[in-house]
């Protein structure tokens, strides 16, 4: 029997990036907010202690900061003809847990998607005709880039993003990304000081007529005090970003940008190591009454609230909706239903160039310190003569030279012994790696649902991921790999190796923690789970915030748009919902 707690105005499920931002915004609006987080409390001072934070074995190999499958696993398969099996270890992607969420251990690439990405179906149909989309289920977001511009700006200024504008109020800027949407002002900080490998990459790309620019980075190029008054430091390029918490207060995360102010507020409370079991609905199924959660001692509580915000990792937002009966589950056979629809991922490939006599010094690095080419991303180029839509950013971002896992050697090198040792010595400083990060477009058969067989420790069905790379995306990625080969050849190394993505997504080797969709936003309740304000169509006092809202994924890291959507949803709640609680969009 759940113990019923006093009512709050707002209950937030998950205290990561979006949970922190929403909590800050809504406590500013005077509401009583409680955030329920299933992982532990973490802060920079205590948990990312500079004296032991760079522990590669603990954090990168043993994955100390990530969700453990014993707490929540999922089952995976490539298509409906297979039987999904549960993962015993997370591999292809690594969901976060704990205060700060996956924003704790990200690299820090902070993008805005292209304006065309937000109206993708309309845009591609107009430019190439509807036939081009026949194998895909791409959709418009229901919100445009121009509407989100202010929200992007707020997130970038919250974070102190270091970059160079490529398009200021419509005027293309030298040194920035000429393909980006128009922004109202510069980045808050200039780009980071460039290291050697990206510099070589940019020169080679430029020689091929491309437009490299410094990757917008949440590793800060200088000292910064954000609009909340929180101070951050200059990144020391230690190379311990992805899989690590930042010990130097120089990687933007909830810890370094929001929580110090949020935790001072008397109308905010965080309950950690408390896992929400479900969102409770009133008898009519149209109103959420709060959530039920279980604490670390196994005691079950009911937290009533007027407003329930799902701010968990995107995949878990979707699972909680399915477990709670919010929205109609998606059925790939009929193509009907909305929750679980349009699950997308990322379509990547990498290129390596092996040199002699270089000093790449890969240990001088940061998660987002590098150069990007967007000439072949999204719809920045003409797909007319091509047999695919979508594209990829090409990134040379050497994130680290850590001693255990950074051991690049050319193909054919023995995997152990004297020859391997010799090669690893020779190529540690002589390897340049860059990669394509490609769009992932929705298809009818890629989706999320509840597994019919496997359950978690509370007896709840696990989430089932059904995914394979769509043929369109494979054609796209392989075409971009050919373009990468041209850049790699121009680099003039001794040996060039360019990978090509293949069908048959493998859930074991790490690829990307960019899982999107499943609770997508849109203008039509028949094809989207939440409206353009991220409000659940069927239960208007539930908002679902995160990459779960992306109708499909672009060839860019998702955190920038996730942060923007957090501000967008906060504004919708503050300016519209609180004034007149109810459906913000009539279907």
């Amino acid at each position: 029997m759940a113990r019923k707690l006093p009512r709050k105005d707002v209950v937030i499920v998950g205290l990561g990036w979006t949970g922190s931002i929403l909590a800050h915004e809504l406590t500013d609006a005077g509401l009583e907010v409680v955030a329920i987080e299933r992982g532990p409390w973490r802060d920079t001072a205590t948990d990312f202690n500079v004296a032991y934070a760079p522990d590669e074995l603990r954090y990168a190999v043993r994955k100390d900061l990530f969700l453990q499958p014993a707490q929540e696993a999922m089952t995976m398969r490539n298509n409906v003809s297979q039987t999904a099996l549960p993962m015993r270890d997370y591999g292809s992607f690594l969901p976060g847990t704990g205060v700060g969420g996956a924003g704790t251990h990200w690299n820090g690439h902070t993008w805005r998607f292209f304006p065309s990405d937000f109206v993708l179906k309309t845009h591609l149909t107009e430019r190439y005709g509807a036939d081009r989309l026949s194998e895909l289920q791409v959709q418009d977001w229901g919100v445009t880039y121009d509407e989100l511009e202010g929200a992007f700006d707020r997130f970038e200024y919250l974070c102190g993003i270091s970059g160079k504008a490529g398009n200021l109020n419509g005027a293309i800027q030298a040194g920035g990304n000429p393909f980006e949407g128009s922004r109202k002002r510069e980045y808050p900080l200039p780009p980071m000081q460039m290291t050697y490998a990206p510099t070589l990459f940019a020169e080679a790309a430029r020689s091929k007529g491309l437009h490299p620019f410094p990757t917008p980075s949440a590793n800060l190029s200088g000292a910064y005090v954000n609009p909340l008054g929180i101070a951050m430091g200059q990144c020391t390029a230690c190379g311990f970003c992805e899989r690590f918490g930042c010990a130097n207060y120089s990687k933007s995360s909830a810890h370094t940008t929001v929580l110090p102010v949020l935790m001072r507020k008397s109308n905010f409370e965080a309950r950690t190591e408390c896992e929400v079991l479900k969102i409770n609905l009133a008898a009519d199924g149209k109103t959420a009454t709060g959530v039920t959660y279980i604490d670390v001692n196994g005691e079950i509580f009911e937290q009533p609230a007027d407003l329930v915000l799902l701010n968990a990792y995107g995949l878990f937002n979707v699972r909680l909706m399915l477990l709670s009966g919010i929205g109609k589950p998606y059925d790939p056979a009929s193509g009907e239903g909305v929750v679980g629809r349009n699950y997308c991922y990322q379509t990547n490939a990498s290129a390596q160039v092996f040199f002699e006599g270089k000093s790449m010094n890969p240990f001088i690095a940061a998660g987002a310190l590098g150069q990007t080419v967007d000439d072949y991303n999204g719809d920045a180029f003409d797909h007319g003569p091509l047999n695919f839509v979508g594209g990829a950013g090409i990134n040379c971002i050497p994130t680290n030279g850590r001693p255990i896992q950074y051991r690049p050697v050319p193909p054919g090198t023995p995997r152990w012994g004297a020859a391997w040792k010799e090669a690893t010595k020779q190529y540690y400083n002589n390897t340049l790696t860059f990669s394509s990060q490609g769009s992932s477009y929705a298809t009818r058969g890629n989706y999320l649902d509840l597994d019919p067989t496997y359950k978690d420790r509370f007896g709840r069905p696990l989430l089932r991921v059904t995914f394979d790379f769509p043929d369109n995306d494979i054609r796209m990625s392989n075409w971009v790999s050919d373009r990468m080969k041209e850049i790699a050849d121009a680099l003039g190394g001794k040996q060039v190796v360019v990978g090509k993505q293949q069908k048959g997504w493998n859930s074991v080797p790490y690829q990307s923690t960019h899982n999107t969709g499943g609770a997508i936003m849109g203008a039509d309740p028949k094809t989207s789970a939440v409206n353009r304000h991220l409000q659940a169509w069927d239960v208007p006092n539930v908002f679902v915030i995160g990459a779960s809202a992306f109708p499909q994924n672009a060839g860019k890291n998702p955190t920038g748009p996730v942060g923007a959507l957090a501000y967008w949803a906060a504004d919708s709640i503050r300016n519209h919902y609180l004034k007149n609680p109810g459906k913000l969009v009539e279907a």
Partner: protein
Amino acid sequence: MKKAALIAGLAAATILGAKGFASDLFDRIEAGRYQAVLADCSACHTRPGGKPFAGGLPLQTPFGALVPSNITPDPATGIGSWSYADFRSALKTGIGKNGKRLYPAMPYPAYSTLKEADIADLWAYFQKVEPVSNRVVSNQLPFPFSIRTSMVGWNWLNFSPQEFKPDPAKSAAWNRGAYLVNGAGHCGTCHTPKSLTGADKTGEFLRGGNLQSWYAPDLTNDPHKGLGSWSADDIVAYLKTGANRFDIASGPMAEAITQSTSKWADADLQAVATYLKDVKGDGAPAPQPLAANDAAMAAGKAIYLDRCSACHNSTGAGQAALFATLAKAPVINSTDPTSLIRVVLQGSQAVSTAARPTTPAMPSFGWNLDDADVANVLTYVRNSWGNAAPPVTAGQVKDLRAALKR
């Protein structure tokens, strides 16, 4: 509980009515609340997370433990049965109700300079504090210090009540600053060196004191180890926000800023800065720094680059509002390195104020640097980038490590 509050209320009303001193006027109570902020009463008399003024955590003095008393108007366990005269006497003379002698951990030598009106305001405010029943056994000192009448002798040696005397030659701001620093602010309680009996060495006013295994640095205008290099605005910023362009507060001062100085009126902070900029240091010339090729310096430099430079920078510049500047920093050049050793061994978290909410922290290195390492790295820091101070010895580190374990 309600009943107790009612009785306390009646008792207070009776006393006030009889003595006629306190007032229910809103502005008097508010003025008294501000006096309590200036004097930072809650720092000692409130437990972390506890009811305001209902008694604090034990203070570890060189003579033993003293527990700050319950100063809520609870008649049985607080000061609810006190008269205004008792209250005034406690502040002015260190003698409480029924002639009970206070220990000078309660800084009555400073409070004795408080003006009559300020004490009356404070009294008016304390009548309105929620009465809390909490019996505190203040005196936990060992014999013979446990004998309160020993304070007769102490007072005879060390204390004579005195009124604040303005200096007509100085500005109004200077005089207000002097009143605050010497009186309610009781800065000297920590920052003035103490004699063997624990009294202020008044001839060395604000030249730095050691207590509870912290060194409270020199606040005089000494250019090397005092505040000589700080402008008045730097001092105000530090007291108001916990940070300025050089430094960010931690340790006991972080508490004093959070609970007290960050809530002071700007004019009062300016007054304090005006006064402190005029307090003379010991006049001793800065020592010569150790040679860079000194063995401890070389060893310390290697440790510094490895462990410290990521935040504090290889030039000791630090980073504004986040990591303290070490180069030419007064506390680094203090003769007494206690606080420096302590922060390296235990780590320290910076102050949190509305203006500076970040609370960056220095991690503990006590577990991965040995005594000689800590001594060497501090010796290097204290003799680099314009700093010059006596070397730190492994013995000093060992002693403090032992003291902190107790």
